[in-house]
C-alpha cells in the first residue's frame, strides 16, 4: 500500500525528500495515544506507528471498560437488565433502553400503549440532541475551541433537568422499560419541553456561527479523514458517521418503530460543503443538522402527546416470559445502529444477550482513515467518528 502512495505522491516519501535536501533521517516510532489522552473520548488507547509527523498505522486497543455487560444480561430478568443498558452508551441512555425494550417486546409480542410510544419518541429524540451536543462540544474542544463545549453543556443541562423530572436520574435513566415507560411525564411537561425547544432552536445557528463555519475549525476538519460512501458501507459504519459520507440510510425511516413514520422529518446527509464528501466536517455537520430534525420530531410528538391520553405502561412488562425463540432488533441510536440479539429459552431470563454497539463498529475504520495522515489530524478524525468507550467495551 505504501508503495502506491509513494508512487503517486513522491512528496509523501519523506525519507527521499529528506535525503535530497539533506534533512535528518527520521525513524519509525511507536507512540501510545491514550488511554488517558484527553481527545480520545474515554479510555481508548491507540498505538500509532509514526514517521515524524506522519501516521503510518493506528491500532485501537480496547477493553479498558469491559464489564461483561452481555453476560450480565444472561443472569437477570429483562426488566432488570435495563439499568445495565444505560451504562453502555452513557451519553444516550434512553436510546439504549429503547433498543433493548423494543427487542424484548418484539420477541414476546408485548403490546405497547400508544401514549408510551409517543413518550418514547420524545425522550429518545431529546437524548439524541443531548448526545450530539456533547459530541459537538467535545469535538470543538479537540480542535482547540473551548467555548462551544461550555455552551453545549449548558443546553444539555436543561435536557437533563427534564429527564430528571421524569425519572429521577440525570445520566442512567432506566426510564424506557419493557412495555412502556416507568412513569408518566410530570405535570406541565409539554409546556416546559416546548419552552426549552424554543430556547434551543436558535442556539443551533449560534453554534454554526461560533464553530461550524469558523474558518479555523473548517481548516482543521474539512478534507481530513475522508471516508467514501463505498468504504463507509464496507466497514459497516452507521449513524452520522455513515450519513456524513452521503449515504441516505436511517433506521427511523427504513423500519419505523415507535410510530416514527407518523412524524415529518428529513435525514441530513453529508454534502461535501467545505471539502471532499465524507470528511470530518461533513460528519460533524450531519450531527448539527440532526439536532434540528430532532427538534422537529419532538415538537410534533409533544402535540401528539397532548392528544393521547391513557396508559403509559403495559401491566405485565416485568413478568414477561421469553419464548424459545431468538430475535435481532436494531434501532437508530444516537451514534448509529444499536441492536440487541436475544435468545430465550422459555424462562424469564434470556439464554443469550448480545449487543451491537455502533461505536464499536464505527471504531473499526480508524486504521483505514488515520493512516497516512498527520499526527495532528488524528484527534480530528477520532472525534468526528464520535465513539463512546462504554459502548465499545460494554
Amino acid at each position, binding site marked *: *500500500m*505504501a508503495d*502506491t*502512495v509513494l508512487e*503517486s*505522491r513522491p512528496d509523501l516519501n519523506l525519507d527521499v525528500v529528506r535525503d535530497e535536501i539533506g534533512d535528518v533521517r527520521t525513524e519509525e516510532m511507536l507512540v501510545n495515544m491514550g488511554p488517558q489522552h484527553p481527545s480520545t473520548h474515554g479510555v481508548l488507547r491507540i498505538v500509532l506507528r509514526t514517521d515524524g509527523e506522519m501516521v503510518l*498505522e493506528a*491500532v485501537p486497543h480496547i477493553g479498558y471498560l469491559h464489564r461483561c455487560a452481555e453476560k450480565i444480561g444472561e443472569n*437477570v430478568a429483562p*426488566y*432488570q*437488565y*435495563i*439499568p*445495565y443498558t444505560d*451504562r453502555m452508551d452513557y451519553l444516550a441512555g434512553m436510546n439504549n433502553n429503547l433498543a433493548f425494550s423494543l427487542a424484548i417486546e418484539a420477541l414476546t409480542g408485548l403490546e405497547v400503549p400508544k401514549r408510551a410510544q409517543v413518550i418514547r419518541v420524545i425522550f429518545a429524540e431529546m437524548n439524541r440532541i443531548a448526545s450530539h451536543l456533547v459530541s459537538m462540544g467535545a469535538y470543538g474542544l479537540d480542535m482547540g*475551541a473551548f*467555548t462551544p463545549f461550555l*455552551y453545549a453543556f*449548558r443546553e444539555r*443541562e*436543561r435536557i437533563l*433537568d*427534564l429527564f*430528571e*423530572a421524569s*425519572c*429521577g*436520574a440525570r445520566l*442512567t435513566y*432506566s426510564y424506557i422499560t419493557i412495555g412502556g415507560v*416507568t412513569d408518566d411525564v*410530570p*405535570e*406541565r411537561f409539554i409546556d*416546559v419541553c416546548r419552552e426549552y425547544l424554543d430556547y434551543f432552536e436558535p442556539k443551533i445557528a*449560534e453554534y454554526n*456561527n*461560533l*464553530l461550524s463555519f*469558523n*474558518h*479555523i475549525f473548517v481548516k482543521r476538519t474539512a*478534507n481530513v479523514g*475522508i471516508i*467514501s460512501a463505498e*468504504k463507509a458501507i464496507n466497514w459497516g459504519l452507521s449513524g452520522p458517521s455513515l450519513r456524513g459520507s452521503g449515504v441516505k440510510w436511517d433506521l427511523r425511516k427504513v423500519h419505523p418503530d415507535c410510530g416514527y413514520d407518523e412524524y415529518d422529518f428529513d435525514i441530513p446527509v453529508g454534502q461535501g460543503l467545505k*471539502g*471532499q464528501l465524507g470528511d470530518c466536517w461533513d460528519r460533524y455537520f450531519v450531527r448539527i443538522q440532526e439536532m434540528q430534525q430532532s427538534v422537529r420530531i419532538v415538537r410534533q410528538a409533544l402535540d401528539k402527546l397532548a392528544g393521547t391520553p391513557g396508559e403509559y405502561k403495559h401491566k405485565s412488562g416485568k413478568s414477561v416470559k421469553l419464548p424459545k425463540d431468538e430475535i435481532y432488533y436494531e434501532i437508530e441510536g444516537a451514534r448509529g445502529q444499536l441492536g440487541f440479539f436475544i435468545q430465550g429459552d422459555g424462562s424469564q431470563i434470556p439464554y443469550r444477550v448480545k449487543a451491537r454497539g455502533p461505536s464499536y463498529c464505527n471504531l473499526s475504520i480508524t*486504521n*483505514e482513515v488515520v493512516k497516512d495522515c498527520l499526527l495532528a489530524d488524528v484527534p480530528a478524525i477520532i472525534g468526528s467518528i464520535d465513539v463512546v468507550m462504554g459502548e465499545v467495551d460494554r
Partner: protein
Amino acid sequence: MSLDWKQTDIVFVDQPALGAAERLYLPQIWGGMKTTLRHMFKKALRDRTVVQYPEQERPLRVEIYRGVHRLNRDEDGRVACVACFMCETACPAHCIHIEGAESPWADREKYPIKFDIDELRCIYCGMCEEACPVDAIELTPEFKLVGKSREEMIFDKEKLLMVYEQTKNLKPRKDPAITGYPETGHRDRVP
C-alpha cells in the same frame, strides 16, 4: 494490517488558496469572540448557568431523585419493612441482604432483624422502591455519599433508619404528586 489499495481509492485534495486576511485568522478569531463576549457580559444568564459548587448548590428536584436509600418508619415509629424480600428479588445488582424474623407486633408476621444495602454496589435504579409493597424502602435525594472504607459503605438497618430521620422533611414517605422542575443555576447553600 496492510491492505491492497487501488489507485482509484486514493483521493487527493488540494488546499484552497488563502487570502491575506484569512491567513491571519484574526477576523475568524474575532468572529468567534463576538459570540463569547456577548455571553460573557450577560450576567443574568451567567448566574442561571454557573454553579460554584461547594459554596453554592443547585436545587435538585427533591422528590424523585434517585440517591441514597432510607428505610422508613411507620406512624408508630417502628420500621415499616415487613421483610417480604420483594426488593431483594427485584434488585438487579444483588446488593440488598435481608434477614427476617418473627415480628413482635400483632399487625404483621415478620420484620427485618438485618437489612444491609451495599451502597457501592447499588446502581441506583430505583427498582427496590418500585417493588416494595408497603413503601418501606425509598431512595432519597441525598447524593453526596462519602466513606473511608468499603465496610462503611454497607449501610445497615440503623444507618438506613438514620437516613430516614434526616430526610423525612425533604421527602415524605409515599411520595406526593410531583409538579416541580429542577431549576438550572445555583441557589445559595442553606447553612
